């Protein structure tokens, strides 16, 4: 589903942030991605959904090399990959509801048909009262929850979330994780970057999650030492 082969990546002329990364994320898997701050977690995720394109090595998404894709192809691909960006990224002058519906709008479909789904999602993430608020008026944790709701609204095959629980309390973290495990049970692939080892340990008791760790510019499966 997401395959990386001998990927190296660096920003500008700097040293390789990632080098020689070969990895295959299989459909229906639940992956945690961890590593120290600045190790390249966000960078790795961006390579996985085609926001960044590696100069060396190949990334293929759904069986296609990203380098062979046009911008339109990548746009269509994003509809199959829901993304929670580390700094969320909203359209600031549109309401929370409109932002959650944005993937539907961008796909040229009528967001009106998804009104109920959006209401249910808002209730689940505890933000029913903020349906009409503007993103700049939300707290950090609220923004992350809205971003997660937007990532899952189209029911994409893959959900890539960069620190979606970084700013929310423990209880809300578990609630968001339940949403993701639920989607994982439906067959969706989940890739989730987090620093929070406690969260990973707790979740590993509930789903068969694999943990990828970035260390010394390599990405490797972590063993039982977590």
């Amino acid at each position, binding site marked *: 589903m997401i395959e990386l082969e001998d990927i190296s990546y660096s920003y500008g002329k700097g040293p390789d942030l990632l080098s020689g990364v070969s990895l295959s994320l299989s459909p229906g898997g639940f992956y945690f991605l961890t590593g120290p701050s600045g190790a390249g977690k966000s960078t790795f995720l961006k390579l996985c959904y085609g926001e960044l394109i590696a100069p060396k090595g190949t990334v293929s998404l759904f069986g296609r090399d990203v380098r062979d894709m046009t*911008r339109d192809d990548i746009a269509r691909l*994003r*509809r199959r990959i829901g993304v929670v*960006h580390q700094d969320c990224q909203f359209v*600031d*002058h549109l309401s929370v509801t409109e932002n959650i519906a944005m993937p539907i709008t*961008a796909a040229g479909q009528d967001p009106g048909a998804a009104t109920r789904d959006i209401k249910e999602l808002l209730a689940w993430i505890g933000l029913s009262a903020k349906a009409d608020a503007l993103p700049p008026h939300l707290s950090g944790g609220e923004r992350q929850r809205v971003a997660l709701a937007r990532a899952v609204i189209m029911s994409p095959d893959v959900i890539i979330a960069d620190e979606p629980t970084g700013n929310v309390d423990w209880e809300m973290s578990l609630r968001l994780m339940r949403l993701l495990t639920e989607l994982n049970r439906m067959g969706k692939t989940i890739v989730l970057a987090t620093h929070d080892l406690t969260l990973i340990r707790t979740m590993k008791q509930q789903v068969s999650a694999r943990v990828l760790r970035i260390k010394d510019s390599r990405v490797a499966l972590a063993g039982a030492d977590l």
Partner: protein
Amino acid sequence: MKVTRFGIFTVLIGDRRADRVVPPSRGMARLTEFSAAAMAFLAVFAIALSSATGRLADRWASELARTATIRISAPPGQVEEQTRRVLEVLATTPGVGSARALTAEEQRALLEPWFGPDLPIAALPVPQLVEVVETGAGFDSDGLQLRLRGEAPGAILDDHTRWRRPLVQAADRLRWLGFFVMGLISLTTGAIITLAAQAAMAANEKVIRTLRLVGARDVFIARAFVRRFTVRTFLGACIGTGLGVGVMSLLPPGDADQGFLTGFGFSGTDWLLPLLVPPLAAAVAFWSTRIAALRRLKGLT
């Protein structure tokens, strides 16, 4: 360029959802409307110029399609011979429709008002007159004069239409000047809209990134900007055209028989021409924004 589900019609009737993804900017909207209004106002005058000078050129040109006269003054014995030669020359002159020598009766009729009916015309050294009818294109009177001098030294071309031809040319050129000005106005409008669209894209780079993140294609993003600028330009152009036509209607009415200045303006169905300005302006805005937006999106990765 492919125009799928993205025609100018779609843009005008709507897809407000696409429009809303770009934050509204009051200042930008006002500036666009004002520029479009000013350009449309000027366009109305350029159209009026073209239309008025066009009418003038047509009228003068039709007056030109008249006759010229050749006078042949020669010693009595040579008049007939020279007349024959003049007619020969005329028969081979491009631009001459027909030519014929006036009969003695016709000449007498012409002179009657001055000399009375009993004039013994045959006994007097009255010049023989040849009437020349031009074709639409007209003849080269200098060339004809030269050839006549060689063939019939007594023949003088009395070209009373000559002074008008430069006027017709001038009117024609003014008409083209009008078209040229219209072209300039369109290009300037396009340039203004392009700059405005580029500025709008630059100001909304974050929105564009967000839209990309959630799977928006370039055309979707471009459409938001295109719709906004097309609608603004159309509205502005409507206002400018309305004002322009209003001012034109206050000018004294043009009469076909009067001079150039009083004839400036529209007459008859020409009044419908300014109706073309707002759709034309909208089309210019549509294409400039579309090209500017798609080009910029191509550069943004």
